[in-house]
């Protein structure tokens, strides 16, 4: 979260990737860092070792898409 907040404060688009179980931690830490609306991407809990390689790849691609959208929204650009 420190890195995310520092980057945003410097005008660099950034997204904090947060595993669902740590959502509360991330949001509370963002408040402590003075940026309660820091850009966070909360992704769901999973068990990669139980998922097929294809499913893991699909999940990663979905998260990557959301990261790109959030970064572009900070620059005002569109895909």
């Amino acid at each position: 979260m420190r890195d995310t907040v520092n980057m945003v404060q410097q005008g660099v688009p950034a997204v904090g990737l947060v595993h669902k179980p740590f959502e509360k931690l991330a949001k509370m830490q963002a408040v402590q860092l003075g940026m309660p609306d820091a850009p966070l991407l909360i992704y769901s809990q999973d068990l990669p070792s139980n998922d097929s390689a294809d499913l893991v790849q699909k999940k990663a691609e979905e998260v990557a898409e959301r990261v790109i959208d959030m970064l572009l929204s900070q620059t005002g650009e569109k895909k």
Partner: protein
Amino acid sequence: MSAMKLASKVYDCADIDDFTEMAYRNGWTDGLPVLPPTEKKVRAMLDYVGRDPNEVLGVISPGEGVATIEKVAINAVMAGCLPEYLPVVITAVEAMLDKTFELMRVQCTTGGPCPLVIVSGPVVKKLGFNFGEGAFVGTGHRPNSTIGRAVRLILWNIGLGRPGQMSHATMGHPGRYCYLVAERPPEEDNPWEPIHVTNGLKPGDSAVSMFPSGTHVQFNMGTGANTIENNLFVCQDVLTNLGQFQAAIQRLVVVNPQAAHVFHSAGWDKARFRDTLLKQCVRPVRDLKRTGGMSVTATWHWTKLVDVNDDNAMVPSMIDAHHLQVMVAGGWAPPVSQCCYITSMHGEMVTRKIDWSWD
């Protein structure tokens, strides 16, 4: 008493009962009562160390609280420390702020580790730490109990590492009220090299080593009742249980003094004991394939250490001598009595010299 201006907010309260309830209402306590950090007591601490109250030691994760000398002193007073304990508490904080310790993860991870304070060197006797019976926490001994508690209150009040909020410990660790052990000094029948010397300091130095502890396991090696070969076999079995073996991690073995003497008398110094265990503490790939749950991105995940296609390949539970720390503490009981085994979680032990003499 110094006239230095203090930065902390002042609260009024009628009496000790009023303060106690105020501390609970404001979340200043880990659940046990705390002492009021009066200006008189805090200034006495600050006067003892003679450091600027505004001096910043660092930022305590995850709450991003700034650990100044003043804030550390306040928590030390709340824990019941005497002024002469403050150099130990400050050194403990400095050690936890070393990146190697990974304080953010230690405070927040689901694994729920607890920083263990290891005190060694002349400070042990100078401040009267208990290094004998009941060495862990040193119940009933003020330096053990209050310094250990001060570290917890600092992590609680400055670092905001609180369960249900920013700490996600699934189970938690019983040491999360106070977790400290003092090493038995050489002149008190410890035949082995002090832990701070093994970690690069001089024998005459006083030191704090902070160990990010995931477990606390008492075990019986059978020393004195069986052969040394079998003692080591039992120790190996404890250190290689599959519940803490998905990745090679740092481990701490605390040997009771009589057992250390049995080994030492048979020609086993600490380095020989440690290095023999390092060689023995392995398990085959076929066993490791039955484990799971740890990300393969872990630095020393077992799949990075051997050929995963060779079921007979042996996986090390520790990668080098730094990852098997050994120290001597505890009562002068029969050598067959308990030893203790502690695993690290995420970070690694950090040792710091205490820059103070108490003379």
